[in-house]
């Protein structure tokens, strides 16, 4: 009988220990899981600097094809008036008529420049309609550890005209990111009220602004 009592006591004690350890382990796991979930929601904040921000008020913001001409091959466009620094490229169709134009450097002019095809003798000449306007250039550096998708970054001029950086920064990469220590040169045309004087950058609740030179 003594042995059976001893065994019974052992069973009771073991049962209680198992139950207590289950409770403690489960509650511990729940608390750990809760803390991890809450901590995971607190991501590192982006840290960045605006190294410079410049407004070019006479940049070539649009080039329309007035007449496509004929006898061209794919080539480059330059300005025949002023030294503002415009350059572009164009593509032609089967007849050698210019069908598309792409600006590679917007330049900066006091009045709309005359755009011409560089170094070609066509059958009939093309002509272009040029528009100049505000163009903002800025260098920004990611000085923190947060790797920021460009689609999370918004730029503003004079606190308005929000523009998503992912839509204006053409790196040729799908869904590009801004890495720690990386400096981006961003540029975009500003169609808002003239003249703009300030430029602001917003990333996940962190805002920074700079006057435009």
């Amino acid at each position: 009988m003594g042995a059976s009592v001893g065994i019974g006591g052992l069973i009771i004690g073991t049962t209680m220990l198992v139950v207590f350890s289950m409770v403690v382990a489960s509650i511990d796991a729940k608390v750990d899981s809760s803390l991890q979930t809450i901590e995971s929601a607190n991501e590192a904040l982006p840290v960045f600097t605006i190294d410079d921000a410049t407004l070019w008020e006479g940049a070539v913001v649009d080039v329309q094809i007035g007449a496509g001409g004929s006898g061209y091959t794919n080539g480059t466009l330059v300005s025949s008036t002023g030294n503002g620094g415009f350059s572009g490229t164009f593509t032609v169709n089967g007849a050698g008529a210019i069908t598309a134009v792409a600006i590679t450097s917007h330049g900066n002019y006091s009045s709309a420049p005359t755009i011409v095809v560089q170094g070609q003798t066509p059958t009939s000449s093309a002509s272009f309609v040029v528009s100049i306007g505000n163009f903002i250039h800025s260098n920004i550096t990611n000085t923190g550890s947060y790797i920021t998708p460009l689609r999370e970054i918004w730029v503003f001029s004079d606190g308005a005209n929000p523009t998503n950086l992912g839509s204006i920064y053409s790196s040729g990469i799908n869904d590009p990111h801004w890495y720690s220590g990386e400096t981006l040169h961003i540029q975009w045309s500003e169609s808002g009220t003239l003249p703009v004087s300030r430029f602001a950058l917003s990333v996940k609740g962190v805002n920074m602004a700079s006057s435009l030179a």
Partner: protein
Amino acid sequence: MADGGASTFILLITALLVSGSVSAVLIDQWGDMSSALEENRKGKEADAKTSLSFAGDAMEVDYDDSVNPNEMTFYLQNSGQYVLDEDTLVVMVDGVSVTSSISATILPGGAEWTDTRLLEVVVSSSSWSYQNDDTLSVSAVVSSEITSGYRGTDTMNIEVRLDV
């Protein structure tokens, strides 16, 4: 000896019954506690993943005094992980609610105010007569869409300077 054996046996059975009852109570209590922890965790998680921030230039918040009532335009960014419900947005200007005259547009266009997207907020009030460079306090409160049965809430407060 036989009496002693019987009483010892009764004690053993009693101990087994008591331990079983205690175990049942403990397991039941543990279940309640676990549920409470889980509920609390989900609520905290929803709040932690709901974040609202001012976006743009606080020094130049657009104020249009050419219209009646005067309008103020500013931008809010969903800086959290949960989708925000713009219909729950409450805005206060200098401590006064302007909720009845809010126009909110998601940028870029979309049906949901997901993370990284902006909300263009235009608020108006006939009682305003602010001037250029006036400084005022803007507060906003918003809740997330219901996610896993819970809504998170976040608030934003900022001092802004008006650009008329």
